[in-house]
């Protein structure tokens, strides 16, 4: 197909977009992002760190949207899958490398006195060998995804039979308890001291930050496309049917338990990749990082702000909140004199208030969910034209 758009036509389309909700939200986001980046002391580093936080939370919130927004499961235990991915990346690939190099790889790998000696030696090997590094990175993510899928399946077993409130509480309790286990069982990921993660991007030298963040953004984008395509597929439409009317789904012969299980497994697997990416980026894995407020409540706030069920909405929800939170962190010292408390709490306060306001006054979020067309827009147009012609012909 040839693209034939006049400049004027393009301008008109742009104006229409700008008058729509998406356009305004997009414009505000762009202005905010550029303001925050340009006023920072180091614009590039600021931009990259915003993007890195954005990508990991975007992946996690996408998975939440898949389970809650599309399937209607009250996933109040998002942190469970995220920390499973993080623990898997913290515990397994490093041990395999240590084993291959003949370093301590058993239960004592989690001991901080051993760990801080082992990981730099693995890093040295990875740095000298780019192919191995890339393989290590991909393997880590695969392990995370597999572990996430496993935990998703495990939680789905008792959870699938429960009703709304019960299901939400059980999922929340699962997440909390798993964090406690990670914090207490030192061999897993070092307990309260945590473990270091071997760095697979060391071979890029001074470009490490840029390369790492680009890879994260790339993975986030690929997962976004995947989830978007999924929600247009027959499976995605089944999910929405389940959410909107379970009875109808039953009548049309859909196996509710199976569909819900699949959604939980897929969502958990995606969230685990998000958690794994986050710990690789940070360079260490500590159980206490993965608490309920950070990885369950905040993704909910992101999703509600963007628009429940709308993946594009989730993109903007995560972006806007990430920007504001980064802004608060950067301006922390300047704000310290203005308010008589640590300004970092403003961000939790803001999250809670925005969540309440959105639920009360804008329940569909900034960019509400739209009915999905299963075919591309121009194909639908062409089909309509053909039908019209045929009607005229008769």
């Amino acid at each position: 197909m040839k693209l034939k758009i006049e400049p004027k036509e393009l301008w008109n389309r742009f104006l229409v977009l700008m008058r729509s909700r998406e356009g305004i939200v997009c414009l505000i986001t762009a202005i905010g992002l550029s303001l925050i980046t340009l006023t920072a002391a180091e614009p590039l580093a600021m931009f990259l760190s915003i993007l890195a936080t954005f990508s990991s939370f975007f992946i996690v919130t996408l998975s939440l949207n898949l389970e809650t927004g599309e399937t209607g499961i009250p996933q109040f235990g998002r942190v469970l899958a995220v920390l499973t991915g993080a623990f898997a990346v913290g515990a397994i690939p490093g041990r395999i490398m240590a084993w291959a190099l003949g370093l301590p790889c058993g239960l004592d790998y989690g001991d901080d006195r051993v760990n801080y000696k082992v990981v730099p030696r693995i890093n040295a090997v990875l740095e000298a060998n780019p192919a191995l590094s890339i393989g290590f990175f991909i393997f880590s993510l695969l392990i995370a995804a597999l572990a996430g899928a496993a935990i998703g399946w495990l939680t789905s077993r008792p959870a699938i039979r429960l009703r709304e409130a019960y299901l939400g509480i059980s999922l929340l309790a699962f997440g909390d308890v798993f964090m406690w286990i990670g914090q207490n069982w030192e061999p897993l990921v070092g307990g309260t001291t945590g473990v270091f993660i071997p760095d697979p991007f060391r071979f890029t030298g001074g470009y490490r930050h840029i390369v790492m963040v680009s890879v994260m953004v790339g993975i986030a984008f690929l997962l976004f496309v995947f989830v978007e395509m999924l929600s247009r597929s027959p499976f995605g439409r089944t999910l929405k049917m389940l959410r909107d009317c379970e009875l109808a789904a039953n009548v049309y012969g859909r196996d509710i338990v199976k569909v819900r299980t699949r959604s939980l497994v897929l969502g958990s697997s995606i969230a685990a990749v998000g958690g794994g990416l986050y710990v690789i980026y940070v360079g260490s894995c500590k159980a206490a990082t993965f608490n309920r407020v950070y990885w369950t409540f905040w993704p909910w706030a992101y999703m509600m702000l963007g628009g429940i069920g709308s993946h594009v909405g989730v993109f903007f929800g995560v972006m806007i909140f990430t920007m504001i939170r980064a802004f608060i962190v950067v301006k922390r010292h300047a704000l310290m004199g203005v308010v008589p408390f640590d300004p970092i709490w403003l961000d939790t306060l803001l999250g809670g208030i925005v969540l309440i306001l959105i639920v009360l006054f804008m329940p569909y979020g900034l960019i509400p969910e739209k009915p999905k067309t299963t075919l591309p827009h121009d194909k639908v147009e062409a089909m309509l034209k053909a039908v019209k012609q045929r009607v005229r012909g008769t």
Partner: protein
Amino acid sequence: MIPPVLASGLAYAGAIALMACGITIIYMCTRTFNFAHATMATWGFYITYTCLMLYGGSPYQYFPLSFLFGALLGAICYFGVNRPLLKRKASEITLMMSTMGYDMALLATIQIFCDFLTYRLGLYPRMVTMSAYDVEVAGVSASTLVSVILAVSILTILHFFLTKTKFGIAMRATIENPVLASAIGIDSEKVYLTAWLLGGGLASLGGALASMVITGTPVMGNIIIVTMFAGSILGGLYSIYGSLLGGFVVGLAEYVGTYLLSLALGGWVLGYRMVVPLVIMAVTLLFVPRGLAGLPWEKLFRKIRAYVGGRLKGVGT
């Protein structure tokens, strides 16, 4: 006379029972599963702590104040968040989520309040051992006595409130069938407000009580909320008596059970305390989904009576 672990275990269990009762009252009346219970409990602790630091005395004399403050937090949640959503007939998930937002906001206010205490009043509010201010009565720490007395008296008060007063009966009618209740002229909004007042108050009272046996931190409530949920679910989620009993059982199992296990298996067990409420919750949901309240108690009593009676007869002849 009572081993110290059992004494603190009883105090903890009583606190959990009060908080679980609050969750159940709010859920029964408004279909809202209150996540903000965690921070409401923490606020109860901070009210007691601050008053104790400022005015001295015994922590117990500030418990009524904690209850009132919790009731105020509950009322704010009802008028600000819950009422508009109930009017809109929002789904259970939406109701839960809105309390999640309230929880986040309250958590932030607690942290801000702690900063205020630290910078302005020169206190150290982020790691508090309230048991240092406890007293001993007849060889038992007062927290144990207060906890048991509070749990029993609240059970009694609620029982009389729900069965003997006109408003209590109206409340039960609304729980049973809201449409029919409003058809005969019961103001359901009053019922909802009462539920939030009672629930919030019990949460704060429970938090103040719990801080007498566990370390008080700004995230204290967030740590024990799984235990509260487990107590409420073990109680059946639709029975006030059940929730008090369930909370008591879960709290005792968590505190004393883990200690007994640690005697048998070694000290490492103590770190996994939080697994106990989860296991209780999972077992309840899988095998007794209606909780303790769903058990055929009358049948059980009759059987026991018949059994005991039979044995007694055997003894007599």
